[in-house]
C-alpha cells in the first residue's frame, strides 16, 4: 500500500498542471500529501469554473457575454471580482480587471499556448496603435463595474470584458494553501504559476523560494535568480519576459497598462514582492511593473519587501528584501 512508504516525519512536494499553468504543493507532513492535494485541486477547480476567460462554460465568460445587463454570479466569482476591484482601488487603476477587451485587441483572445510566441526578452514594445488604444480605453474602466454583494449581482458596461489574470492565480494559491493546511493539519506551500502562498506552521528552516524571471526556470535565470526564505505569507513575481506573443507582426506581453490599453512599457523586467498573502503580493508586483520607477517610492512607502530587476539586470532591493 502507498501508505506504507509515507512517513509523517518527511515533507512532500507534488506538482501538476491546472489553471493553464504549473502548480506545486509542498506540505510539512508527507502523510497529509494526498488529502492536501485533493483540497487544493478542489479549490483550483472551483476557481477555474468561475474565473476562466477561455472556458466556454465559465461564469466569467457568461458575465462578459451579458455585459450591459445585471448578472447573478456565484460566491467564488463574486469574491474574485471583489478582490480584482480592490486591486484596482489600491493601485489607482493600475491593476484593472476590465482590460479584457484590450487583451483581445492585441491578440490574447485564446489560451496563450495557442498564440505565436515572441522572443523571451524584454525588447522594446511597439508604438501604440491609435485605434486599438482608443477602442480599449472606450471600453475599460473598473469604476464602471457595478457589484451588489447582497444580491450577488454584477453589471458590466456594454462592451467591457473582465479579465482576472492579474489577481486570480495568486488568490488561488492563497486559497489552495489554506485548504491544504486545513485538510492536512500541517504547514503547506502552494505555488500557482510562480505565485507562492503559505499557510500553517512553516518548516523550522522556512520555505526556500527561488525568485527569477520565469517560474519554469530550473537554473539561475541568466545569473539573476536569488534564493530567499519566507516563514509565512506570500511571494509573487511579475515579469515582462514571459507570456509574450506576436500579433499582427508585433510583440506583446500580458501585463497591460490600462491607460494605453497596450502591454506596459516596462522599466523593470521582473518584480518580486512579499506580502501577508500572495494576492496582495501579486497586486503589488503587477502594479510595480506598470508604474516603472515610481514603484520604488510606492513600495517603500507601503513597507513591502520587494526586488526589482531592471532591463539591464541591475537589481533594487526594498523594505528589508535581502541583498544578493
Amino acid at each position, binding site marked *: 500500500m502507498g501508505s506504507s512508504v509515507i512517513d509523517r516525519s518527511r*515533507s512532500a512536494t507534488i506538482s501538476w498542471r491546472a489553471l493553464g499553468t504549473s502548480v506545486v504543493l509542498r506540505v510539512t507532513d508527507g502523510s497529509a500529501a494526498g488529502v492536501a492535494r485533493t483540497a487544493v485541486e478542489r479549490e483550483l477547480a472551483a476557481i477555474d469554473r468561475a474565473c476562466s476567460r477561455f472556458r466556454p462554460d465559465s461564469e466569467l465568460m457568461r458575465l462578459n457575454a451579458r455585459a450591459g445587463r445585471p448578472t447573478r454570479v456565484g460566491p467564488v466569482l463574486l469574491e474574485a471580482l471583489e478582490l480584482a476591484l480592490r486591486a484596482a482601488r489600491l493601485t489607482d487603476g493600475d491593476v484593472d480587471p476590465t482590460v479584457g477587451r484590450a487583451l483581445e485587441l492585441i491578440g490574447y483572445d485564446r489560451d496563450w499556448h495557442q498564440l505565436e510566441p515572441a522572443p523571451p526578452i524584454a525588447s522594446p514594445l511597439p508604438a501604440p496603435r491609435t485605434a486599438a488604444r482608443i477602442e480599449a480605453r472606450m471600453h475599460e474602466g473598473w469604476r464602471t463595474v457595478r457589484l451588489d454583494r447582497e444580491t450577488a449581482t454584477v453589471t458590466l458596461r456594454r462592451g467591457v470584458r473582465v479579465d482576472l489574470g492579474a489577481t486570480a492565480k495568486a488568490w488561488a494559491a492563497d486559497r489552495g494553501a489554506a485548504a491544504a493546511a486545513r485538510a492536512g493539519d500541517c504547514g503547506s506551500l502552494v505555488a500557482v504559476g*510562480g505565485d507562492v502562498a503559505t499557510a500553517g506552521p512553516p518548516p523550522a528552516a522556512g520555505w526556500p523560494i527561488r525568485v527569477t524571471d520565469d517560474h519554469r526556470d530550473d*537554473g539561475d535565470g541568466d545569473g539573476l535568480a536569488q534564493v530567499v526564505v519566507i516563514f509565512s505569507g506570500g511571494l509573487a513575481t511579475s515579469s515582462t519576459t514571459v507570456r509574450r506573443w506576436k500579433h499582427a507582426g508585433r510583440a506583446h506581453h500580458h501585463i497591460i497598462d490600462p491607460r494605453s490599453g497596450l502591454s506596459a512599457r516596462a522599466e523593470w523586467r521582473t518584480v518580486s514582492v512579499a506580502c501577508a498573502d500572495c494576492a496582495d503580493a501579486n497586486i503589488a508586483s503587477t502594479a510595480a511593473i506598470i508604474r516603472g520607477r515610481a514603484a520604488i517610492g510606492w513600495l517603500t512607502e507601503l513597507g*513591502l519587501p520587494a526586488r526589482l530587476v531592471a532591463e539591464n539586470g541591475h537589481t533594487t532591493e526594498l523594505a528589508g528584501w535581502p541583498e544578493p
Partner: protein
Amino acid sequence: MRLGHHSTHTRDAALGQLSRMNRWLVAGSVLLTAVFTDVAAHAFPGKSAHASARGRSTSSSTSQGGSSSTTPTPLKPPSQPPSGEASSEAPPGVAAPRSGESQASPAPSQESSGSSGESSGAPAEAPAQESHAAPEAPSASESHQSHESSPQAAEPAQEASPPVVSGGS
C-alpha cells in the same frame, strides 16, 4: 402708403417670429448641452488627480468600481521580510533551525552561479540524500511527488528542501 404700412406690419411680424425662434433655439441648445453633459459624465467617469487609492466609505452594499461600499484593506507587508537563504532565522513561535541547517544551505552567491547538471528542477544545492518519487501521486498521471527529510527529524544535510520557484508566468 397702404402697401407700405402693410409691408411694415409683415416685416415686424416676421421679425417677432424670428426672435421667438431664436429664443427657443437658445433654450433648446442649453437643454441639449445639459443632457449630453450628463450622459457623457455617466458614460466616461473621470477621477480626481489626487484620488485616494483607498476608496471611500458608504453605507450601501452596492459598489461601482472605485466608489466602493467599504474602505479596502491596504496591502499588508509580511510579518517578517524574506531572508537570505544562508541567514534565515525562524520567527518567534517556530522552532529555530539547528546550527547545521544554515550550513546546509549555500550562500546566496552560490545560488546565482548557475547549477549545471540539474535534473527534475532540483537545484545543485538540493540535498544529495533527498529521496524523490517515493509514493504515487494521488491522481493525475502528469504529476510527480517527492519527499524530503523533515527539518525536525533528519540530519542537517538532509533538511533543506529545494527551493520552490517564483517567477513570471
